[in-house]
């Protein structure tokens, strides 16, 4: 095979629905694969910690249905990575069951359905730590400690191409993946068909966010990537979008600190020598990508731990004197919580919209607040009852804040709602690390079944 063509209709399947018209134009090109990633750590630690999806099931089903029907119509494989936002085992099972239901609903002829899991048992990591293995931190995370592991609720490992290739080699028509590097969802079939790793990983890199590599800006539109032995070409399917040198090179830097390197399980894609060429109006051709195998096979782990139950409250302030002294108002309310619950065992956060609500410590204009403020109060504690009371004191006591020269003496803040509301429990990222593995499939058990009639 001289070239392989893959379409990607969505950069994060489920987060918002794919756009059907450009997807159908992509399908009309008769690609060899239809693939998309469905996850991201952008959604924060709550979905992984609480084992939920942030994407509605209706949107997940919409995209899976479009992709499955097109793939079976063309007789080509369909690949999904990072099922259900987090790629946890329950999300893989959810997607497998949606595929089965869709196959039933449309009376599709029997096909082979492969899937793999990515969840990592805490006991497995604990044994590695006890055996003296270093679980290295990424970015600002230090080496993993026993305490941080204990504080973790759930861990997923980030798959490279390996479990996808294993399932394709077994003849899977549909692959449903656990947590995966998004580029590997596309690199895997290319490597499976014998294309060089450098081009294959670049193909994945450019396709993973669908139309984010095209201009003008417009998400959830389909793009088509074609790989040969020495180049990758990418084409926008939406009639008004184009993949230009600027849009493709610009996408290389999106969401990562370096525009030149992309790390995946087993190696690094090096884009520093890439050359970009405008092949036609809507197509850009890229050559010069390189791939370096890592000396040690390390897999990224993601873990989230629960901080506590959470309630939120909201207040407004209009008096300019009170606005100038908003830190004193917050200080007063915090003091009342401290007198009730002490200094620790809970968290109390204030986000001051109108001053530095969006940027916090990074806000250069925090000494120039607006003429009115909205303050979001969050109380986090081990039990819902305590979180409610922390938040209630932290919110309502702002009303009673004692400012020496305030003219208004009938309430320091305005309530739109005189209540606090239960919010999702608070979680935090405990694990952003890498673990050495002897076998690339060690953390990713694969399974094969069938669906359809």
């Amino acid at each position, binding site marked *: 095979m001289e070239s392989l063509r893959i379409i990607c209709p969505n950069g994060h399947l489920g987060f918002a629905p794919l756009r059907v018209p450009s997807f159908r134009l992509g399908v009309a090109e008769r690609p060899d694969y239809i693939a998309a990633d469905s996850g991201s*750590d*952008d*959604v*924060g*630690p*709550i979905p992984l910690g609480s084992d939920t999806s942030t994407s509605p099931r209706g949107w997940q089903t919409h995209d899976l249905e479009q992709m499955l029907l097109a793939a079976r119509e063309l007789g080509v494989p369909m690949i999904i990575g990072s099922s259900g936002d987090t790629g946890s085992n329950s999300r893989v099972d959810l997607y497998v069951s949606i595929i089965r239901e869709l196959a039933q609903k449309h009376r599709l002829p029997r096909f082979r359905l492969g899937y793999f899991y990515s969840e990592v048992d805490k006991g497995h990591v604990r044994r590695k730590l006890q055996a003296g293995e270093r679980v290295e931190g*990424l*970015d*600002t*995370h230090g080496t993993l400690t026993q305490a941080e592991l204990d504080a973790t609720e759930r861990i997923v490992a980030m798959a490279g191409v390996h479990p996808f290739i294993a399932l394709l080699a077994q003849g899977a028509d549909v692959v449903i993946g656990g947590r995966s590097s998004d580029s590997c969802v596309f690199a895997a079939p290319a490597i499976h068909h014998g294309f060089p790793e450098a081009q294959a990983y670049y193909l994945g890199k450019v396709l993973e966010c669908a139309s984010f590599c095209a201009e003008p800006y417009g998400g959830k539109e389909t793009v088509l990537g074609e790989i040969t032995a020495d180049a990758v070409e990418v084409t926008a399917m939406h009639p008004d979008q184009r993949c230009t040198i*600027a849009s493709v*090179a*610009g996408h*290389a*830097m*999106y*969401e*990562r*600190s*370096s*525009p*030149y390197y992309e790390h995946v399980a087993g190696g690094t894609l090096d884009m520093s020598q*890439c050359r*970009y060429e405008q092949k036609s109006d809507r197509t850009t051709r890229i050559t010069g990508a390189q791939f370096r195998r890592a000396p040690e096979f390390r897999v990224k782990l*993601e873990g989230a731990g629960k*901080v506590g139950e*959470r309630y939120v409250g909201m207040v407004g302030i209009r008096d300019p004197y009170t606005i100038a002294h908003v830190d004193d108002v917050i200080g007063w309310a915090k003091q009342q919580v401290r007198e009730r619950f002490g200094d620790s065992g809970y*968290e109390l*956060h204030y*986000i001051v919209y109108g001053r530095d*609500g*969006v*940027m*916090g*410590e*990074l*806000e*250069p*204009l925090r000494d120039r607040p607006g003429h009115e403020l909205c303050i979001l109060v*969050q109380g*986090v504690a081990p039990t819902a009852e305590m979180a409610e009371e922390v938040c209630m004191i932290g919110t309502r006591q702002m009303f009673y804040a004692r400012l020496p020269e305030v003219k208004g003496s009938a309430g320091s803040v305005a309530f739109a709602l005189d209540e606090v509301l239960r919010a999702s429990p*608070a*979680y*935090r*990222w405990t694990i*952003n690390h890498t673990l050495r593995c002897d076998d690339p499939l060690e953390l990713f058990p694969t399974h094969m079944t069938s669906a359809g009639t």
Partner: protein
Amino acid sequence: MAKLSALAKTIRSKNAGVDLITFDVIFADRGRYERVKRSGVLTRERVAALYRIEPSRIVELVEFDPGNAIKFTIARRRPSGSPGDPDIFGSQQYAPLLDIEVE
């Protein structure tokens, strides 16, 4: 003098993993890109001063010629989505760059 917002095609911020926020300033043509590069308004020191942080929290600053872009990355104090984080995606942290004056 011109504002950076008048010279750049794209000015954006976004998470780069859970610990970092990365900023992209992208220009439509080589001329504007080179002008901003030469002006020195986007250096580690200048960016750190603008955001009022230690220069060491800027973990990377790259002049990316193939993309006509200047890119830098700031380490978060706590990972994205921790309780109290006001910008889980890191998508609204670029605004102070808009008004930078460029010679």
